[in-house]
């Protein structure tokens, strides 16, 4: 089944840290704290003990290579997965997946899920009283190309109320899940739409301490990728942790 292809002269028991890439930590304020009072669901779910630093060794600098075998032909087009088109504003969501040094992450799985145009998810515990759309599942998958670019066709999700606080509404968003190249780069995030008046009132959006980092979750309207008479374009570039070059790369630069 699996065929080992060992490079000669490298013993299993000896892999020096200098032979491995090293992923830099993100600056303070880039990611939300695990405990965030404004988002009530964190209360019983965030660890109370401090995190312990995990050294970056083989398990951490490698990660799953999830390629084309996981995708169906219409997985990237959420408007063509049923007999008819879903209700809603048709949009194109595209962008690049790169690391913090600008290196594209090619051939990498991007997964999305979202509510329908009325703000309801096709999920058994979502009982928000707006209709389900029989023509919308709200799930997409795509692979980045050689330049790290991905593209989805979907409809703009609606805002929806939730029980976090009085008159609480989530800004419209699309959930994104990406793997990058290494376990250390794994990221799940949410893509928002420009100028949403709900930003100021949303504790999940505002859980990110750094204001500039928050803006990196907001897609940009993209006229160049808006298709005339058909769909609005939005650009959402995703940036994962950067890494220091390995000696191997430097030797071949």
């Amino acid at each position: 089944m699996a065929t080992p292809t060992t490079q000669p002269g490298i013993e299993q028991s000896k892999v020096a840290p200098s032979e491995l890439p090293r992923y830099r930590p993100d600056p303070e304020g880039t990611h939300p704290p695990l405990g965030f009072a404004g988002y009530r669901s964190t209360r019983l779910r965030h660890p109370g003990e401090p995190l312990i630093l995990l050294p970056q060794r083989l398990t951490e600098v490698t990660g799953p290579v999830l390629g084309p075998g996981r995708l169906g032909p219409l997985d990237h087009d959420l408007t063509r997965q049923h007999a008819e088109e879903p209700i809603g504003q048709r949009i194109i969501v595209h962008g690049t997946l790169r690391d913090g040094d600008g290196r594209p992450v090619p051939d990498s799985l991007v997964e999305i899920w979202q509510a329908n145009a009325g703000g309801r998810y096709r999920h058994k515990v979502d009982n928000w009283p707006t209709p389900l759309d029989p023509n919308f599942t709200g799930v997409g998958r795509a692979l980045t190309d050689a330049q790290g670019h991905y593209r989805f066709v979907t409809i703009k999700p609606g805002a929806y109320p939730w029980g976090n606080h009085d008159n609480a509404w989530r800004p419209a968003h699309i959930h994104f899940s990406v793997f990058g190249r290494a376990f250390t780069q794994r990221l799940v995030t949410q893509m928002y739409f420009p100028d949403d008046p709900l930003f100021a009132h949303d504790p999940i959006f505002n859980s990110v301490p750094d204001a500039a980092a928050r803006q990196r979750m907001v897609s940009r309207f993209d006229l160049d990728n808006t298709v005339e008479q058909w769909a609005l374009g939005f650009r959402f570039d995703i940036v994962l942790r950067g890494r220091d070059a390995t000696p191997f790369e430097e030797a071949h630069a």
Partner: protein
Amino acid sequence: MTSTELGAQFGADFDGSTPSQTVGPFLSIGLPWPDGPDVVPAGTPGAVLIVGTIFDGAGDPVPDAMVETWQADPDGRFDHPDDPRGRVAGWRGFGRCPTDEHGDYVIRTVLPGALPDQAPHLDVSVFARGLLHRVVTRIYFPDHADAHADDPVLASVPQSRRVTLIAARHDGGYRFDVRLQGPGETVFFDA
């Protein structure tokens, strides 16, 4: 090529990483795969089930979480370009399972081999509503108790808490519960 040059080449401004956000309560419409829990197919020699429950700080199960595992093959090898020892083509190494209404998950795998300087282990990510960022832990196995004594990651964990990282034998396989908070809280890592 420097990061500035790379940035110029791709016409983008790399002023920082994209922040993490919670998977929310509805991750199970988007992330599960039919074969997600199968790091190896059923019937693979040596295949075992790792089962467990995710608990919150009140001791209640978490029914809207997801567990992902990443591990070496039985020889301690990966199918990845950054492993200087070379690749083992076709080794997936990855498992993914949402929790059910009882907070339970299951992963079907084979035990990993030892890594250079480290005892056999799985790296684990837990995602959930209420987790604004994944939490990362590790699963070690009771079969390798001798190797645990020399494992640098276990050595970095206070002795009294190491037990939270070691799976229990269970029904021919293993059980690994995750306690997000409170008494017996699982050790989580800054990865």
